[in-house]
């Protein structure tokens, strides 16, 4: 029997059932053990295989796009799946004329991921900005107030049920309730209040290049835009941030809380102490929310407006990596288009994995602390 390595032992906080092995048994009785060991190891191996296939297959299929565009894919601002046919311009900037007709040139499709990376980053950031304060407040109430008035279980259930509602249901609500509400009431009001202030002008106007000239135009307020995407995402990630934060706050030692109260801290001051104590776990909870927001597809596709360009305004339609995939993957008939989409999927995967890994590390670190002490 292999001795557990020191490293595994250290990182395993909990008791290791089975690590205390009974003495070796006769072979005949080991057959069942062997079968179970093989099955269990096989299942674990399957988990590794799944991860390997995920990364391997996507990377393989994205290879043509990677070869073609290289790292420039990440910063390319144009996503245009069609070819353009336009008059060829000579070095003097004039049209090249041959046999009395202008010579045409074909501009190949262009694929740059920056607009969707931008869309995912901004919509997720908006979602976090809305969701984190609300979630932390809710978690505090769940931990410190609700148990005293016997509402804890009820509230926890409601928050968890909010997490169980499928994405498409939020999408439908966003599309038919939230987006029209934003379009008719919220956005015109904001425009009235802020539209003429210089500092907010960029939110309500867009710069367009029309016929070689840059003009400034008022933005059409549609309600199906980055703001709506961010809000729907916020609603969807409140449950996960709340429930993880609740667990983190529960793990704050009572002594910590009682100590601060004994020193005469107000309710809020003692809350701050709790938040401060659990900060890395709470940050991890937010990262989990961020990972969820970045990967969310159906609801976002239905409300974000699906425009693959970079616009500064939160009232402009946008596109995220996942909504781009939902919109175009089934339709991509050219090899390059499909491969570019797979590269977007790969970027999305790597990004959400990075958030997840960071989050796990922080949350596990935070909630492991009490057991460390024991």
């Amino acid at each position, binding site marked *: 029997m292999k001795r557990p390595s020191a490293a595994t032992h250290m990182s395993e906080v909990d008791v290791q059932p089975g690590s205390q092995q009974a003495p070796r048994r006769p072979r005949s009785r080991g057959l069942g053990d062997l079968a179970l060991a093989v099955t269990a190891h096989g299942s674990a191996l399957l988990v590794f295989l799944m991860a390997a296939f995920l990364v391997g297959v996507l990377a393989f299929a994205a290879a043509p796009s990677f070869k073609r565009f290289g790292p420039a894919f990440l910063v390319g601002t*144009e*996503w*245009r*799946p*069609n*070819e*353009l*046919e*336009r*008059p060829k311009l000579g070095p003097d900037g004039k049209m090249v004329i041959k046999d009395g007709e202008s010579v045409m040139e074909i*501009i190949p499709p262009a694929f740059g991921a920056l607009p969707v990376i931008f869309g995912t980053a901004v919509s997720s950031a908006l979602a976090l900005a809305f969701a984190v304060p609300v979630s932390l407040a809710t978690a505090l109430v769940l931990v410190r107030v609700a148990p005293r008035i016997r509402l804890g279980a009820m509230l926890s259930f409601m928050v968890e049920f909010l997490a169980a509602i499928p994405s498409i249901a939020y999408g439908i609500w966003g*599309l038919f309730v939230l*987006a*029209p509400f934003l*379009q008719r009431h919220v956005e015109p009001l904001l425009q009235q209040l802020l539209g003429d202030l210089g500092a907010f002008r960029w939110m309500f106007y*867009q710069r*367009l*290049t*029309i*016929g070689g000239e840059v003009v400034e*135009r*008022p*933005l*059409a307020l*549609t*309600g*199906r835009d980055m703001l709506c995407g961010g809000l729907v995402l916020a609603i969807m990630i409140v449950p996960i941030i709340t429930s993880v934060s609740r667990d983190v706050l529960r793990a704050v030692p009572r002594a910590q809380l009682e100590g601060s109260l004994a020193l005469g801290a107000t309710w809020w001051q003692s809350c701050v102490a709790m938040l401060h104590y659990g900060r890395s776990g709470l940050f991890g909870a937010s990262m989990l929310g961020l990972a969820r927001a970045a990967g969310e597809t159906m609801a976002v*596709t239905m409300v974000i*407006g*699906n*425009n*693959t*360009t970079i616009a500064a305004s939160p009232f402009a*339609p946008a*596109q995220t990596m996942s909504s781009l995939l*939902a*919109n*175009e993957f*089934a*339709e*991509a*008939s*050219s090899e390059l288009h499909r491969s570019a989409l797979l590269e977007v999927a790969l970027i999305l995967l790597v990004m959400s994995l990075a958030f997840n890994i960071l989050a796990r590390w922080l949350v596990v670190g935070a909630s492991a602390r009490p057991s460390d002490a024991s």
Partner: protein
Amino acid sequence: MTTMLTFRRAAKAAVVTIVLGAAAALGNGDVRLQGAGATFPNPLYQKWVSEYQKVHPEVKIDYQSIGSGGGIKAITEKTVHFAGSDAPLSKKEIQALGGESAVVQVPSCAGAVVPAYNLPGLTTELNLTGEVLVQIFTGSISKWNDPKIAGLNPGAKLPDLAITPAWRTDGSGTTFVFTNYLATQSDQFKSTVGTGKQVKWPVGQGGKGNEGVAAVVQQMPGAIGYIELNYAQQNKIAFGAVKNPAGKFVKASPQTVSAAGEAAAKSLTGTVLVANIWNQPGDQAYPIASFTYLIVYRGLKNLKTPAEAEALVGFLSWAVQDGQAITTSMDYAPLSSGVRDAALQALKTITFEGKPVSTGGR
């Protein structure tokens, strides 16, 4: 222990369900055909399928409207038996399918792309020209009360409202037809936005599918989107008349679309039938019209049994003949008799395992 029992019972139930399901699937002798593609003719195709089933109950057909691009991709990868597309196959796509001799493409009906708009308070119908549409969709006209629109619509109460162009985000034949029409109106459009099933629009908002664009138009005052005639009709969305090459403002209808398609019959030859019918001459012809196509392998190499082959060819032949009778009631334009004949001729060249397949159904 009881929970483990429940566990086993659940597992047993699952196995039984699947075995029964598999048995049911194997047990009946039904032929099942899978199609996918264009969303524009989807309502008509669904109706065709249910009508055809009344005559041939043993044939089950499933058509999934995933978009023209998706349909062509699916048949190229042989993941469906037949594809629907609003845009004819490109040269590259024909090559991917195995060359012109390996493919049969026939028009199934004709349709129109209409400029649908949402202008509260407007009581009259809007008149538009190709040039104005280009300027709207590229952003040079940005208000509804722009003199260029007002000039076409004397007496109309045009609001001081921002225009939001709405367009398809997915690869689609509707975009193909609309951009090709706009390209005939403006060279600058052709060289900046270009033509294709999916292009990059400089302004406006995207929607997925005809339905997505229709939804944007319906929900947003000031929006104008290009959608198929039947979607506009079904949803009672107002749409404008467009000036044709003869100088007349024509509103899309099955009649004006058929008028555009009539002239095309002569140019339909071979097995890959193609005719672009936008911007056609004729007083009655609606300018943003197009055929929608059905695509199969000529050797039916993606089918498994002769019964499937017969069912598929039977359905397609039925569609271009008897099926035409119900097009008008659903706001599609029927094929003219010349086009029908050309389509039937092409379908007659289909073979399965080297033998010709009857077009008469079973």
